[in-house]
């Protein structure tokens, strides 16, 4: 039961992440992924948020880059 709950939660997190990040349209090349990632980082670095939160959002940018490259 416990394992099932963990699996369900993990699945939910992955689905949420996949839905949350904008889908990379077909035809995106790696340069576009790079540029989106750079823009995401620049946006975060100018967030004026406390540093711990900035670290978390930078990680979200990195996940977005991974997703962009995977779904290219």
């Amino acid at each position, binding site marked *: 039961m416990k394992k099932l709950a963990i699996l369900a939660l993990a699945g939910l997190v992955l689905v949420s992440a996949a839905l949350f990040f904008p889908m990379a349209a077909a035809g995106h090349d790696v340069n576009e992924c*790079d540029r989106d990632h*750079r*823009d995401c*980082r*620049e*946006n975060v*670095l*100018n967030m*004026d*948020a*406390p*540093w*711990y*939160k900035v*670290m*978390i959002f*930078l*990680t979200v940018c990195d996940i977005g880059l991974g997703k962009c490259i995977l779904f290219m």
Partner: protein
Amino acid sequence: MIEAERALAFEGPPCRPAKSTVGMGMTRRAAEAMVVILSLTVAAASGGAKEQAVERWKAVEVAAAANEADEALLGRPLSLALDAECLYVADAQDCAVKVFSKDGRFLRAFGRKGRGPGELTFPSGVSVVGGRVYVADKLNYRIQIFDGEGKPRGGYPVPFAPDKVFAMGAETLLITGNPTGRRAGEMLLHIYGDAGRLRWEGLEARSSSDPMYDTFRNMILVCPGEEKDFYVVFRSGDRTILRFAGTGVLRGKTPVDERHAFRPLDMPFKGPKKRLLGFCWAAARDRGLFYLSAPEPVDGKDLGPGRRLSVIDKDGRLQAVVELPCPVHRFVVEEDRVFAIDDEGGLRIFEIVR
């Protein structure tokens, strides 16, 4: 037998002298202890006097003029610049530069979202000199130039996302950029001449196996100085102020008084624990004095903007501490006035009372 010998013979053998006394019946050991205690007390007192030598200045809010225009609202103000009459604010959300009088009255705005001439995408830096307004048009990867009325007067592309821009005289700009962490040897500072010709690049980004750590270690603040000199302060991990000539030559390093203390922050992610040493959230310079705001703890273990400005002289000594009524994200200083952006993104004006 002379008198002294007689005295010794009378009191006992010389190899084991009797306890000597130092007035008021005090033994020598007690006297030495007293001297040690006294000297420690004096040292502590002088240390305390040094602490007291740091003046505490208050900052009193100046009632800003009421602005009713929607345009006057700041969405995401990322940079402030002053000229003789006005305050210029780069607003990344509204893709505009907003101009205020020095009593906070909204005067005009220019720029709108786009990629064409006079249009901006995420303006993150602004600087004014000689009636020209220079804007770091970050996500268009270019510098745009406007006249004082907001009419576009050209610009040029740059091969990185420009973060802040500082006009060092007619046609010479210092531009900062955040390193991407993907290439070795990325530079944090770039000097461009007329028509967008690169004159100098320098201050290589620090790199290690941890890109997150590097991102924070490479965050810098720049303060323009006199005669085209400029100063660089790292936001964490380094307590020196670097002084550069307008040509890019490093002129000196000034360590900052340790009373402007590091604020540690444990980084949350993988690998062995790394500790960031927060040093400065924002910085400004005016009339030879640096104003550094120390990051302050927020929400328990995080570090956010502070409400105390350390006033540092050219030798790195802490001269005074200015207590602001609220935390500020960025600010510029002119004489006794501090123009600042608060936690809500609002423009606040403070008068320093010395």
